[in-house]
């Protein structure tokens, strides 16, 4: 743990990057969100279940399309009792990994509810990827890959089946999400060139004191 701690600090303090994306992993309790994050950030896995308290995050810098992207990945508690805390972080997230457990029918049925949560609390242009986790447990599968794909199409998002334990598709999901956000970024900048032109300048000129109150005229 000590080693990863140092690594984390190094990653967090690292200034040498181009973009910073904030990602959020959501889904029912015990679908494997924390394992998924640990696999990606630290390449570690433990099958012991420790419920996440409220919220946690990890930082990882990746290299994508000649750009260094710093990812701040928020891991949320799936339990209902932390919901007020977790939803507060929806607002800052650019991308969501919506996770369900392929061995748990209920977690799959909740996907629609989670989508509603995203729509309610996040920014409009936040990107979502649907992930069916624990695909290594093929014998206990209750949600077929087809159903997952179908639901993803219905929601208009991309879909992956992953395994944090066997390290299947974990990296792919994050890379794909980064790509989607990058695409969205250039798209939004090209569609709104006017926003660029005066945007930053307008910011600090908004406060205009009423000059007629005390014109300070020496005449």
């Amino acid at each position: 743990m000590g080693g990863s701690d140092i690594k984390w600090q190094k990653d967090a303090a690292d200034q040498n990057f181009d973009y910073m994306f904030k990602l959020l992993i959501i889904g029912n309790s015990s679908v494997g969100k924390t394992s998924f994050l640990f696999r990606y950030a630290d390449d570690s896995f433990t099958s012991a279940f420790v419920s996440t308290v409220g919220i946690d995050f990890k930082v990882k810098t990746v290299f994508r399309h000649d750009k260094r992207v710093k990812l701040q990945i928020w891991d949320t508690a799936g339990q209902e009792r932390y919901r007020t805390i977790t939803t507060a972080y929806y607002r800052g997230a650019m991308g969501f990994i919506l996770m369900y457990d392929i061995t748990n029918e209920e977690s799959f049925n909740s996907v629609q509810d989670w989508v509603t949560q995203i729509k309610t609390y996040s920014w409009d242009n936040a990107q979502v990827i649907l992930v069916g986790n624990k695909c290594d447990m093929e014998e206990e599968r209750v949600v077929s890959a087809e159903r997952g794909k179908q639901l993803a199409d219905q929601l208009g998002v991309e879909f992956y089946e992953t395994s944090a334990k066997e390290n299947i598709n974990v990296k792919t999901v994050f890379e794909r999400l980064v790509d989607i956000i990058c695409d969205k970024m250039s798209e939004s900048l090209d569609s709104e060139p006017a926003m660029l032109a005066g945007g930053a300048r307008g910011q600090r000129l908004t406060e205009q004191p009423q000059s007629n109150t005390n014109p300070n005229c020496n005449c």
Partner: protein
Amino acid sequence: MNYQSKANKYVCPNDRQLSLRAKLRTGWSTARSEPPLTATEREAIAAVVKRAEKVDEVEARRVGRIVARLEGMRRSAQGPAPRSCLLCGETSRLLAPLRTCSICRNTACPKCVIEMPPHRSPIYSREQYMCNLCAETREMWKKSGAWFYKSLPKYILPERKATRRYNDTELARSLQDAGNSSNEGKTDSEPGSPLSVHAPTFSRQPSNTDSRKSIVSSHDTHHDWNETDILSHGVSGLSLHRTESLNQRSVAGLKRTGSKGSAYSIRSIRKEISKPLTQPERPTTIPDAGFGTLEIKLAYDNGTSSLAVTVLRARGLIGMDMTGLSDPFCRLEILPREGTYSNRLRTKTVHKTKNPEFNETLHFFGITESDLAAKSLEIVLFDDDRYGCDEMGSATVSLRDCAKSPIQLRLALSGATGTEPTGPRVLLALCYSTKKRALVVTICRAAELPPRDSNGYSDPFVKLHLDPDPYHKKHKTSIKWRNLNPIWNEEFLFETRPTELSRQNLTLTFWDKDYGKPNDFLGSLVLGASSKGRRLKHWMDCIKFPDHRHEQWHSLTDTQHL
């Protein structure tokens, strides 16, 4: 949100919660069946939140650096001009024609543009250049995440003097402490609401008020302010009141910065602020009449029969523009004149100051020794203005004293001699009518207009407009045929608000009506908050005392500015 309080398990949801719940279709009950968070849970969450804050702060500093970089580029840019580069000011050359930026539409030289990838811009398919400024702005939007949040996230600007980038200076620490302590204070006092305090914020307002205060309160000398701070925080009244050490002039100057925000004015004002600190003013020994003093050196050369007048400096001049500063220059003349020939010389203009250092030597040639005994030198200080010059004071000195040896003099300036303007002029009445919510401009009369027709007369009429005017209202008086001193007494209304008025300029242009050829220009007049002297006073009077008619003569200038 008293999430943890055991006492009220049932709370009345607020409107926002109700509307969110309606969207979630989860029912209306807000009873909390789950047990509240335990102390250890709260601690764990607080630890994560603290960690996140650290990341946010690092990020805010990074964004601050990007913003500062862009700000620096903006400041060093030459500004848009028709046939020169926006950034470096380079003019168009044969081998390096200027490009037009497809975003800001300004021209820039090939060195200061980048080519846009053709697929990137479907809208502007013809021009695929982007000036470095727009490119940098674009990068800033991308790198800061502003593209996503539709506005810049909160940021902390880097300190100017910290060349050691990662070494926090006192300023930064105090800034940071202020931010932290206020946050921690809240957490301690109401531990039950981690949400309201630690929820990520994406507006830069709350943290900035803190930091602004801390900057001001922790540094009592104003030269610790750096340009970027003033620029970014937008100097507000709040911060100004806390700096008692700032003298009146710089307060006035900074106020103007706040309202205009142009980089130029900031720089000049900074110069102003530091000036009194670096060079202590010599005490004025002679009484002055409130118009300031002027120091000159006179030296007469027998051999070349020339008089060298060195205008050294002036002190305590009257302010002419909004900020209480002036752009003084001196006009020198040997009086009495010989015949109609006038022997006038002028110094260069020193901008934005009441204490100009001229240090300029002007030579009058053909001055005989007998002239010295009889003649005197008149020095008139004017305020340089595109739209006419206002007299700021004058002094006359006899030349007799300098006949033998050079002398240095300190002169007290006396007030403007002729208060009523001469030459082409107009009598104008302004009145802001609160009933009509409009500025009523009355063109009463004009005098001594220049003749433009072959018959020795002009056929004058006046065009008026307010700028900027959301209604784009333009007015014209009638034409007074064959008349150089026309009387109109015509009234015109401009719908506007008094608050708007302090940002608007009224432009009058006088024309000679001609048929078959373009109208001849006779003169112009601009009144407004950015004008100076008499014109400024007239305008401010009109704003300060609405529903009163303010009548005043104004000289016309022959420069045409539209």
